[in-house]
């Protein structure tokens, strides 16, 4: 399936968001995700199906002012 993550194109096998994160190699806590500009909460990722051409945002915490 062809999707976009943080603006970059990927071909992935995963069908659910948590599997996708794992497939990309970023498993672990302290991450935030949005699909097509909608928040997908931490506990919803295992239920959230991803579809062709979905735009996925994965954000990490950083230092900030």
């Amino acid at each position: 399936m062809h999707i976009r993550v943080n603006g970059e194109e990927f071909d992935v096998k995963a069908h659910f968001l948590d599997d996708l994160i794992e497939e990309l190699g970023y498993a672990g806590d302290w991450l935030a995700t949005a699909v097509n500009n909608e928040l997908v909460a931490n506990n919803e990722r295992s239920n959230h199906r991803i579809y062709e051409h979905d735009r996925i945002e994965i954000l990490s915490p950083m230092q900030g002012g």
Partner: protein
Amino acid sequence: MLTLYGKNIPSRIFLGTAQYPSPMILENAVRHSGASIVTLSLRREIIGGEQRSRFHKFIEMLDAYVLPNTAGCCSVKEAVITARLARDLFKTNWIKLEVIGNQDTLQPDIFALVEAAKILVEEGFDVFPYMTDDLIVAERLVAAGCKTLMPWCAPIGSAKGPSNTASLRTMRDHFPDLPLIVDAGIGRPSHATMLMELGFDAILLNTAVAKALDPVKMAQAFAQAITAGRLGFEAGILNPRDIAIPSTPVIGQAVFP
């Protein structure tokens, strides 16, 4: 004791976490200043699980309340989605709402700010809006449900200190019971003291500490400056007058001057 959205806040110095020379210096600055709130950001960046987990532990170790911000957002839509993501990640309803109107000067877009604040309050966020010193903007934000305000005293990182004392004073008088936190543009400890003497409730600093030659020492200096200013305010500061009043009583002296 300062209270913000129902939480007791033991110290009136808050620190941003950006641009420190190293994580170790950041940690020491937070510890030695006794800062009770630190700000953090969210970035469209995927950090590996291990590094994220270590950063998480590092932040927890700082032992301060985390106030996530919507830094980098230039529209209502961006700010709102970022706030939602921040709430999910940091597990707090607190959000420092920044909507930038100009990428160069980082001046807040007050129109987008008010609109975003309305939406976020509605969704149950505890909004800390970073704003200019405009009284009408303040009124709109309070009307939208913000229970605190974060006016600037000068542009972010400029270290100019307050040049808008009149408008800050007006805001303080206008909202006597609202916690007001001055954010952005502070340069030296005496700026912070001066603002606390005016009756502001806390100061949020980043550049003034992080970019000082000795950030840890500067953090301590600011902590003491803020304490001094607050104590002075609570003690009731003497109003200035033009004619001298001797502090030693003159009645009873053998010879009048």
